[in-house]
């Protein structure tokens, strides 16, 4: 793999990580470790796990997500994250934009094939 390709995929991954985190939370509240695990399962994201935590903190500061503490039967209380109404709205727009981008790129590829 060329260095150009590696740099490009790194930039793309960085760009979509926030979208991936917000989408992970769209199904319901999750605690930090669980979010990291789920993102880790997406092969093409290939993240170092710690990268997620500063993004969670930033999304919380920007009021896209909120946290609350919940008792756990398996150990100490855990900090759960969930989408705020603002975050849900932002996620809707981001997914819409992603869809447009995907379709536009798809159309460009089809044109090239003709």
């Amino acid at each position, binding site marked *: 793999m060329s260095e150009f390709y590696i740099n490009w995929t790194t930039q793309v991954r*960085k760009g979509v990580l926030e979208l991936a985190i917000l989408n992970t939370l769209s199904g319901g509240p999750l*605690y*930090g*470790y669980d979010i*990291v695990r789920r993102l880790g399962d997406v092969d093409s994201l290939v993240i*170092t*796990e*710690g*990268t997620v*935590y*500063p993004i*969670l*903190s*930033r999304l*919380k*500061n920007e009021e896209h997500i909120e946290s609350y503490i919940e008792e756990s039967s*398996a*150990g*100490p209380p*855990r*900090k759960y994250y969930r989408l705020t109404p603002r975050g849900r709205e932002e996620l809707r727009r981001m997914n819409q934009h992603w869809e447009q981008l995907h379709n536009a790129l798809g159309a460009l590829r089809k044109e090239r094939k003709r």
Partner: protein
Amino acid sequence: MIEMTPEAQTRFERYLTRMRSALRGSAVEAADVEQNVREHVDVALASTAAPIGIDRLDEVLEQLGPPERWLPEDEQPWWKRVASRMSSGPEDWRLAYTTFGAFALGLFLLPVGFGLVFLICAFLLARAEHELLTARGESLGARRWLVLPAIWTMLLGVAMLLLVAPVMALASIGLSDGNLQFVHGVPHTQPETLERVRIETGYIAACAGAWWLVFSILLVFLAKPLRTMFLPVTENLGRKHALLLALIGAMVGAIGAVLLFAIP
């Protein structure tokens, strides 16, 4: 909180220190991230038998990755961006050479007065170089000859300021006109006799001993910030050094007391 071996606990605390340092100056709340990382490690190691050893902890920390790489470059504080650019020159030696240049200029200009400004700049550049190399998982290697003199010099200056300056201040108060009479009834006007040298030496030694004893207690609390400030030179600074200083203080203080009171 899971139980770790002392080595693993130390490794974890250092990782968290690096994390706080990496996030300093950014829009991210370090305390918030720290809480998440602690929880992450707790959950990841929940099924491992306590106490958790350093090898098992390292596996988890390796997956978390170096905190210095958690923030994209545009979210890092300006000084880290500048240092990063300066270090990416030929063979990554540019920042090390700049550090040594500022250090040499600082020494050269010290008699003029503003050499201190360059020495402080050299110290900051040296620390930045060390932090960047740590973030990349590299060691200073031969660059230490260019980088470490600036850190050693600043450390020496701060050590003098903390250990010697208060003693000199105490000594000057005690030995100024008339004050020594309160200690041993020897007026300042008395000519240089062996008796006066004994009492003045004893007084200075007693002051030094007392201050170093007090400072050794302070050092227990100051060890962490001092260690962080002068890395990598002070990497192992800790309680044993405070204890050593207390012992030296007690010995010097005892010599002072003997000179002052035990010898007639």
